Structures are given as structure tokens and as C-alpha cells.
């Protein structure tokens, strides 16, 4: 019989305690919980307040050393294709055109002063494939390929996930290719004429004949 009444009492007190807790949370809904991270000493002290982060208006800042979306500064790219070869998922596609001698000035220099010798008309990164391993960033000799702090870049159309960093239009690329072929053709013509006249090609030293090999060394003396 007394268990009956104590059950009722326990029921009533636990309901009241529970309602007090909920009401306290309700009243605390005007504050936000602190933003102490797991490393902070008072991480467990922040109990009161809302804990919702209204993304994308409020964002936890991405860490500076984090590896997120790739960005290529094409003006610094020397077209070495190291990143393309290093990528484990082959998400980078590069096409380069060698710059002709008279175009070197137009091709320009990297920000570190290095003369660029390749046009890069096509530099596509498929950021949907990219797994942000960072290998391409570590092998880039001019540090033009870097991670940016952008982690949220979804698109409606998957074709928009291929980022085009090439800085030549198709017409310009065609023009450069033609120029390169013309230069090559002109060089071959000049080399053919020089060979026909029996001279060495311009600017090339004449190779000296190799000296005749001496007597073969004895087996026992080789080690001395």
C-alpha cells in the first residue's frame, strides 16, 4: 500500500524535476552556447543556450592549414605537368604549347622571376574527383597550385564541377600552335639548307671523333 503512494510521489517529483529542466532550457534559448572547442579547458562548462549554427550564415572558419578546394594561379604556372602526373585520381588535365622564341616576352615571367616557356591553354581540375590529398600542391615547383579555404562548393550541374584555369581561348591556342609549327618548319628548313651546304647546323659545335680505345686493362689491376 505504501508502495502505491510512494510510486505516486516518485512520479510526481520526477515529472516536476523534468519539467523544471526543460523550462530552464526553454528560458535559456536566448543565449548561444559558447564556441569553445574540444581543446579548451571550459568545453564542458558551456551548458546553457542554443547550439545550432545557422549555416551558411554562420560558419565555423576552416583552418588555414586545411586542404580544401584547389586554386591555380595560372599566371605562375610554368606548365611542367608535375601536378597532373602526381594526382592519384587523375583529376587534372593539362595541355601545353611551347612558346616560340619571339613569344617569350609575351609569355612572361612567374612571380619568382622565372621565365615561362610554355603556354597553358587547358588546365582543368575536376574538383568533384579531387580528394584533397594535397600531393599536387606539394609537387608544384612555383607554388601556383594551392588549397583555398573553401569547403562548400556544390553545383546543380556536375559539368560545372570541372574548373577551367587555362588562360588562352581556343582561337589564341590555335594561333600559338600554328606559330610553333611555323617556327619548327623554319628551323627544319634552315637545318636542311645548312646540311645541304655541308656545314654544321647553326650554333651547334662539331663533334670530335672519339679516341681509339687503349689495351684492355688486366683483370688484377682494375681494383687499384
Amino acid at each position: 500500500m505504501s508502495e502505491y503512494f510512494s510510486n505516486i510521489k516518485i512520479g510526481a517529483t520526477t515529472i516536476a524535476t523534468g519539467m523544471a529542466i526543460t523550462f530552464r532550457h526553454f528560458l535559456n534559448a536566448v543565449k548561444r552556447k559558447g564556441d569553445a572547442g574540444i581543446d579548451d579547458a571550459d568545453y564542458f562548462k558551456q551548458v546553457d543556450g542554443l547550439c545550432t549554427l545557422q549555416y551558411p550564415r554562420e560558419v565555423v572558419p576552416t583552418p588555414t592549414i586545411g586542404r580544401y578546394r584547389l586554386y591555380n594561379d595560372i599566371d605562375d604556372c610554368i606548365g611542367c605537368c608535375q601536378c597532373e602526373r602526381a594526382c592519384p585520381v587523375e583529376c587534372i588535365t593539362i595541355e601545353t604549347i611551347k612558346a616560340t622564341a619571339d613569344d617569350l616576352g609575351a609569355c612572361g615571367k612567374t612571380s619568382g622571376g622565372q621565365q615561362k616557356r610554355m603556354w597553358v591553354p587547358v588546365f582543368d581540375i575536376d574538383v568533384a574527383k579531387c580528394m584533397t590529398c594535397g600531393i599536387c600542391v606539394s609537387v608544384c615547383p612555383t607554388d601556383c597550385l594551392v588549397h583555398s579555404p573553401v569547403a562548400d562548393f556544390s553545383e546543380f550541374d556536375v559539368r560545372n564541377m570541372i574548373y577551367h584555369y587555362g588562360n588562352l581561348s581556343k582561337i589564341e591556342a590555335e594561333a600559338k600552335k600554328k606559330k610553333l609549327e611555323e617556327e619548327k618548319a623554319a628551323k627544319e628548313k634552315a637545318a636542311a639548307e645548312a646540311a645541304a651546304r655541308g656545314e654544321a647546323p647553326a650554333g651547334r659545335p662539331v663533334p670530335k671523333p672519339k679516341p681509339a680505345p687503349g689495351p684492355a686493362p688486366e683483370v688484377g689491376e682494375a681494383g687499384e
Partner: protein
Amino acid sequence: MSQSPSLNTWSDALSGFHLGGFPLGLLIVAAIPLVFIALYALTYGVYGERKISAFMQDRLGPMEVGPWGLLQTLADILKLLQKEDIVPTAADKFLFVIGPLVMFVGSFLAYAVLPFGPAFIGADLNVGLFYAIGIVALEVVGILASGWGSNNKWALYGAVRSVAQIVSYEIPASIALLCGAMMAGTLSMQQFSVLQSGPYGFLHYYLFSNPIAWLPFLIYFIASLAETNRAPFDIPEAESELVAGFFTEYSGMKFAMFFLAEYGSMFMVSAVISIVFLGGWNSPLPNIGALALNDMTSGPAWGAFWIIIKGFFFIFVQMWLRWTLPRLRVDQLMYLCWKVLTPFAFVAFVLTAIWEIYK
């Protein structure tokens, strides 16, 4: 008809309003609570539930649609209207369709006797309270029809449990309200409010003027939670157990009907408890000397305001309980009803009778 000449002025005027022989006024009288249910269920019911539950759980709730998520309910209603209204092939089509309708009608019919202020009541019956308790039992028919007609064992489980729950909890609820009727000496809802009016505001309310009234008040509040399938008695709708209980198979507008019926009966029981125990449309503010606060806040429009505010307060408490307590098991629910609430209801009945005799 009402005893006092100044009561029910608005609803009497409306019921006499004919437009070319067509009783347009009566239509308006019926439409007002219906519109009120719809509006309230949309705004306070859905939005309030989501926001209150969110704040109690340290989150924000709807924030995107409209400032502070105020238009969220509108978006929900538009979504529900566009949903495909599916009737399963194996379902008993007549029962399936009629279930939500009967449930909504049962919940809405009780609004006929709720006084929204001293000037407006749908039907000032002199057995208003008896009618309100009885007509809510019509929901049981609707629940059974939808549970059985769904041809789904989970729905049937939900429906059967719900019927057991509602029918059991009618008893302590009715006895508790009977205590209130004893205190008032009448069953008319308007008279309940009139008898609790006075210059001292809330001190005239039966809850505060009667030393034993807190017991039937508590008993009726708990029993009304079970009547409306509201947590912690929401086994019929147990979201995590029975998918959605007896309305598992419903989509679109029929689902919205169940929804409206549930929120409608939530407000209805809140209104009943505030009429019987908390003075209905009377202002709680007392006349303090020269500052006649009670007189200042009384009147037809003020009355409507007060009863709505009291209803909203109890709805807040219902939501508060929902997000605090875990669900009761079926046997615990039945234990609570028959072994706790009913005996205490009888005790309260006897004590109220003694108080009334020797007052």
C-alpha cells in the same frame, strides 16, 4: 437561453441575421470556430510546437521560411495540399475516407459550446459540459474507422490502443469535471464563467477559491492529455514505434485533417479546463483599490482574449510535458488510469461534495 440579458449578445445577433431568408448569420457563427481552429492549428499549433520543442532542446527550430520561420506553417500546408491523396488498394475505401472526417467532426463539434467571450457562444446549451464530454467520444469512431480501414496491422494496433486509452480516461475526466459542475451547480458553460466573475479577478476562480479544486484540476488535465493522444500518452501515434499509428497510411489532405483534429481537440480541452476551473473569459486581474483593473480588462472582446490566452497557456503546458516526459507503456497507461486517477477522482468527488455541503 441564457439567464443574464447581457450574455451572448454577438452570437444572438448573428443567429438572427438572415440574408434574403438564408440564415447567413448561423453560418458565420459556425465558421468562426472553424476558422479559429484552422488558424490556431496552423500558427500556434504547428509553429509553436516546433519552436517550443526546439528551444527546449537547445536548437532553433524553423528559421528559414519568413523571419524566425513564421511562414513555415504556410509552407507546410501548401505542401500537404499538393501531396498525392493515396487510398491503398487493399483498404476499406469507405472507412478509410470517413475516418479522418469523423474524427475532425467530433473534435470540432465540441466548439459549439465553448464560449469565446461573454458575447459569443455557438450554442448556449444548459447541458453544455455534458455535451462537450460526450461528443468528443465521436473521435473514437473515427479512429477505429481509420485504423481498421487502413488494412494495416500497425494502424490497427494504434487504433485499438487509442480507443482503449480514450475510453478508459473518459472516466476520471468526467468525474473531475463533475466536481467542477458541483462547484458551479450547473452544466452550462456560460454559467461557469459568469459564476466565476467578480472584482477580485483570479481569486474568484474555482481553482483558487476552493481548497479541493486542485485535485480534480490535475486529474482532468492528465486525463485530457490521454484523451487527445498527447504525449506522454501518445502510444497511438508513437512516432518511433508504430510509424504513425492509426494514421500511417494517410497522406495529403487526410493527414492534415487528423492533424487539425488533434490540435483542435488540444485547444478544446484547454478551453474546457480553463472554463471550469480558471474562470473562462473572466479577467484574472483584480480591482486594486482605485485601479479597477478587472473592469478595464472585461468586456466582449477582452473576454475572447482571455479565454484564448488561457487556452494557449494550457497548450504550452501540454507541449512542455510532451517534450519532457518519455512515453508510457500501454500497461502503465492503464494502471495510471484505473488504479491512480479513478480512485483519486472518486476521492475528489467526495471531498468536493463535502465542501459544497458545508460551505
